[in-house]
């Protein structure tokens, strides 16, 4: 800012003259109390101050002017250029030289300082620019990724929603607009029912997902029989499971365990449903449960294609679908299962079986009840 004010050369020279004049006037008064040598130091001090913010020209002018004034007004005999004593001539010469050197050096230092500052500012600006650019690049990448995620989500959900709705609309419209033989009527109506169930399952999953995301899943454990859990799931998936051999394996002495029935039912449902979607018909789907060391363990096995080893760590991710999956499905089921198991402070893992198929293992800490109750 200061530099701007004194930018114009003329104002700098004017300031130099004014400063010298003012200082000289003060010195003229002080000369009554001080020796003329001390006056030279005051003048020199003033020139040094000017050198800190004026250009080289005005400083030279101030130095010359103050040397002249010192000679004429202060060095005896006063009011003449003439100097009597040799040492005064020497002092005047030295005054002029010191003022000059002072002015030149200070100006040079200032110039270097300004250069350094400019350099720093440029570096800063470059750094800032660079940072902005990389932030912009990151943001662009982030946007691109979330955009991609959003599109994937949107595509899969809109597809999953539209297919059953299209089925329901098409089938009911067909029933309304034309007369069908009884067999076709039954088939169309069955399709409507199936599509509604599919839609209902999807809504269930979406609601569960949003409950999970909102952190609103709080297990309310109560005593339950694991048989009931497995039966409920098998009953709800009766139609899907009719194409498979279902092998349930629960020890005779399986104790009641304290779990949230609804949540664990959903976990088991999603895993068994998943198996029924990918395993070839008439293969075996196994559901087994056992209790050990305070943990309820559940295992779900199938003879499906298993999971590609390089994708196995990703399958519990939300909306993740294994490459080449058949259409249908949103990639929500397994991530909900994981969320619900973790809400029980439990663990869920998956591995490919050595002889083909996949195996999901769940273990959750659960209280048990072994004490015999008699009457």
């Amino acid at each position, binding site marked *: 800012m200061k530099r701007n004010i004194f930018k114009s050369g003329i104002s700098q020279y004017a300031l130099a003259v004014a400063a010298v004049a003012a200082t000289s006037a003060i010195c003229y008064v002080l000369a009554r109390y001080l020796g003329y040598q001390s006056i030279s130091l005051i003048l020199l001090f003033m020139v040094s101050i000017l050198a800190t913010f004026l250009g080289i020209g005005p400083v030279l002018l101030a130095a010359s002017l103050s040397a002249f004034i010192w000679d004429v007004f202060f060095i005896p005999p006063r009011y003449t250029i003439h100097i009597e004593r040799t040492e005064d001539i020497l002092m005047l010469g030295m005054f002029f030289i010191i003022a000059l050197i002072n002015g030149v050096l200070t100006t040079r230092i200032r110039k270097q300082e300004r250069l350094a500052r400019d350099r720093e500012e440029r570096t800063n600006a470059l750094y800032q620019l660079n940072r902005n650019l990389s932030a912009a690049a990151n943001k662009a990448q982030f946007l691109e990724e979330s955009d991609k995620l959003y599109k994937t989500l949107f595509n899969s959900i809109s597809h999953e929603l539209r297919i059953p709705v299209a089925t329901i609309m098409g089938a009911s419209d067909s029933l309304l607009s034309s007369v069908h033989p009884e067999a076709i009527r039954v088939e169309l109506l069955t399709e409507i029912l199936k599509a509604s169930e599919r839609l209902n399952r999807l809504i269930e999953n979406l609601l569960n997902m949003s409950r999970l995301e909102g952190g609103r899943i709080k297990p309310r454990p109560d*005593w339950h029989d694991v048989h*009931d859990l497995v039966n409920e799931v098998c009953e709800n998936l009766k139609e899907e499971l009719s194409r498979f051999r279902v092998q349930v394996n629960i020890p005779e002495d399986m104790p009641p365990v*304290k779990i949230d029935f609804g949540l664990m*039912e959903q976990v088991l449902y999603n895993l068994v449903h998943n198996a029924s979607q990918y395993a070839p018909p008439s293969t075996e789907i196994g559901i087994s449960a056992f209790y050990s060391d305070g943990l309820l363990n559940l295992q779900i096995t199938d003879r499906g294609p298993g999971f590609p080893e390089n994708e196995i760590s990703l399958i519990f991710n939300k909306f993740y679908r294994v490459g080449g999956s058949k259409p249908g499905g949103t990639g929500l089921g397994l991530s909900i299962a994981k969320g619900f198991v973790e809400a029980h402070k439990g663990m869920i893992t998956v591995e490919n079986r050595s002889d083909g198929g996949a195996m999901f293992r769940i273990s959750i800490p659960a209280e048990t009840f072994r004490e015999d109750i008699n009457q």
Partner: protein
Amino acid sequence: MNQAENVLIIDDEVQIRRLLEITLTANGFNTFFAASGKEGLVSAATHNISIILLDLGLPDIDGLDLLSKFREWYTKPIIILTVRDAEEDIIKALDSGANDYLTKPFRSGELVARMRAALRLSKEKGDNPVLESGSLTIDTVSHIVRKNGVIIKLTTTEFSLLALLARNKGRVLTHQQILKEIWGFGYLEQTQYLRVFIAQLRKKIEDDPSIPTLLITESGIGYRFGA
């Protein structure tokens, strides 16, 4: 059914009302409708209603409050209709006198079966000392239970539990209702007792204890004796 039963449907969804009208009329019921709790109370008082289908989510009054109002004078069956994940409400409704519940969406076949079971249950005098269900006979006087004619040994508690459920055949009894009835007020939280005794009973009376058909679990709610 000799004479058509009057059913009152209290639900504010037009589509659901229409669907129920078609289904229930086709199954021989006379249908009456109310879109709000207030209308429902008036309609139930002015028609000879044999059974009420009550949706818990009504615009003007909390479904559970309405249920209590009905139960001050209405003694015939009330079946609750509600959305999923409302277990607490279902339990409260059953504990405050609802006879059964169905979660939306439900299959109409299931609804009609539940309505018939509730109506049959409400008409039984309940003084028949011998309860029969398939291959099972329960003599409540002599405390003898037979399966395919063979006597099955039950402990006193097992017998009480079985008799209680069998007397309410087709109806859901909540954990609390059963615990209160069999063990008493001090045991309302002891659901593990119930799990153990149900498991023991199943081993004794079910054809395949792992796939029960008599002692049916209503997950998170209670038990129902199957037909």
